[in-house]
């Protein structure tokens, strides 16, 4: 091979690698706004609160000296693994109660978006501690909820529909008023495009609509506050101006990819089973009394219908990871996801799990679509 040919090959390889790198960067890190993550945050926070309330409801069965799973069993169970929780160091009911109450409160704070930067991490950590203490009691709900809250720690989900945004605006306004009273040199409340002062955020994550500026055009930033206040504002994340951010894309992509893995391996698992091939899996799922919440055994009168539902579920799950990305098939795939999980929730008694899976699927809904849908009173004007 001549030197020119080698050089050409090298440059084309470098060019291909640069393209891959650039595509990866664009895929994972191109900034986006936070409406999707905010929706996930609200649902996940509320669910975390509910989960911890359930632990509290039967506290003595789950924690304490008379727990169903005492510390000796837990030690043996986790002896050869890297699972650690401070709840395994003591069988004190008081510690467990404090922990669970705190976790439930943090779940609420996460849902409303208060100090989200910290409450998301706290919610994840406290739930993780519970999860490692109560492993045998867990199922898909815990997997999906913990997965979502982990990725919410990465994104800036509080950039919209949050108390943080509301507080940030209040602080900016207070600062503006203070500036006006002290001399009023060229500052005033920001106004929206219709001339009305901006009130608490109406949910839009628009940087431009939310930022108050001095008359000279300088945005009012935390530096505009006294040093002590600005430190708190920054620390609590109240300086978030709702700009599109790369963290949001990263968090969203991680949720999307994780969801693809879940469905792909779930589908592969089903491919191993004869019932998913012969079309009887739907019947046997419906005929499990312990799962049943609404009677679905009438499906036995329509074996072809049952078999079709079985196969749709199987093929949808196996192909989800590929068909959810193209815009042409995404709506179809997500619609089936909603139907499958709603079915699991309504008929198979796992309303919490079904609901959280639907919520997780929202990660594939573009923020702009959510914004338009929610701000136009339920009239979407664009495709997902």
């Amino acid at each position, binding site marked *: 091979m001549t030197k020119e040919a080698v050089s050409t090959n090298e440059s084309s390889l470098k060019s291909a690698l640069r393209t891959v790198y650039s595509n990866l960067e664009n895929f994972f890190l191109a900034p986006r706004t936070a409406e999707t993550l905010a929706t996930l945050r609200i649902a996940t926070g509320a669910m975390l609160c509910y989960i911890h309330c359930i632990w509290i409801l039967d506290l003595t069965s789950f924690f304490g000296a008379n727990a169903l799973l005492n510390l000796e069993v837990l030690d043996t*169970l986790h002896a050869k693994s890297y699972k650690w929780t401070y709840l395994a160091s003591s069988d004190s009911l008081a510690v467990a109660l404090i922990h669970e109450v705190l976790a439930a409160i943090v779940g609420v704070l996460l849902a409303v978006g208060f100090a989200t930067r910290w409450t998301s991490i706290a919610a994840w950590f406290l739930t993780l501690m519970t999860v490692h203490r109560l492993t*045998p*009691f867990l199922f898909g709900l815990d997997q999906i909820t913990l997965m979502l809250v982990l990725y919410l720690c990465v994104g800036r989900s509080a950039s919209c529909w949050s108390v943080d945004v509301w507080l940030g605006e209040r602080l900016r306004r207070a600062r503006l008023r203070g500036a006006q009273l002290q001399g009023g040199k060229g500052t005033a409340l920001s106004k*929206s495009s219709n001339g009305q002062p901006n009130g608490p955020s109406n949910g839009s994550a628009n940087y431009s609509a939310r930022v108050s500026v001095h008359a000279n055009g300088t945005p009012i930033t935390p530096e505009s506050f006294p040093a002590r206040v600005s430190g708190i504002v920054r620390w609590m994340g109240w300086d978030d101006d709702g*700009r599109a951010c790369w963290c949001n894309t990263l968090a969203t992509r991680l949720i999307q990819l994780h969801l693809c893995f879940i469905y792909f391996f779930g589908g592969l*698992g089903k491919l191993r*089973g004869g019932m998913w091939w012969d079309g009887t899996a739907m019947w046997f799922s419906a005929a*499990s009394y312990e*799962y049943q919440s609404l009677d679905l055994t009438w499906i036995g009168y329509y074996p072809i219908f049952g078999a079709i539902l079985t196969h749709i579920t199987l093929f949808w799950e196996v192909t989800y990871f590929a068909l959810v990305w193209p815009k042409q098939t995404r709506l179809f795939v997500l619609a089936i996801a909603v139907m499958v999980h709603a079915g699991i929730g309504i008929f198979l008694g796992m309303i*919490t799990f079904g609901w959280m899976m639907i919520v997780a699927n929202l990660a594939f809904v573009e923020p702009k679509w959510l914004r338009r849908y929610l701000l136009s009173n339920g009239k979407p004007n664009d495709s997902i």
Partner: protein
Amino acid sequence: MATSRRPNQEDDHEESPSRRCPRKWVPCVLVLVGFHLLAVVAEPLHFFSRSEVQSSPEFAALRRTFAPYVEWLYLDHGYFFFAPNPGPSHLVAAMLVPEAGQTWTSSFGASAGSLPETDTPNRVGISDRHLNPKNQLANGEIAYLFPDRTRQWPRLLYHRYFMLSEFYNNVFAPSELLPDDRQDLEFVARWEQDREFYALLQKSMTNSMAYRLSKPDPTMDRPQGPGVNLVRLERPLPTVEQILKQGLRLNDSRNLEVLPESPRIPSGESVQPQRLKFPSIPSGKP
């Protein structure tokens, strides 16, 4: 005069100025993302690649490498939802083993009265009436059953108990091995470990059940509860014919089978799961 910038709602990526990832961070972030995604798939790949012969060595190595990260972050799932096939459900029944003549009241208010001394040991007196909290508790009858949607509510709490009963059944190790199985020393070693864990779990659950069913005595540190024996039950999945043609109800307790703790009965013959015999229940449409 203050101004406000015009909202721009046209695109998610165009709002200016957006927060972009600093250039020098990008490679580092992408590497971390790659690491994390590998960790996410490590467990299912390992889980799927196991057979009776071996675990696929590369996936086993991947799983081992990521073990601390995967396990502590609770990423160790195979995602086997309803796979490979929907299976039978498992329940756990707490059976009372009181002293003769003992009288006590259970924590859910069932007055037991004098408990009969004799009953067939394996005769689990389960019937639909066990769902009634006012049932009479007698020797050999179920004092507490889980999962039980009438006792464990809301549904999420019920599901927690359901998962525990499935876990208890999954980790079951028989109290003894058949002579053929004793030839394989590796198998025996694994059984000993499994049996030890199962016995620990059984003891923990038994104590908890005894505590739950006992009347708390304020004069003692821990209340003195009745003796409790845990029984594993299995509800096989019924066929279409059984439900729609024979009129069997999904919750028909005649379906429940008592799962044996040992593969042998005293005479030395191996046993099959015992099917319970119950008074006939009127059949009807489920």
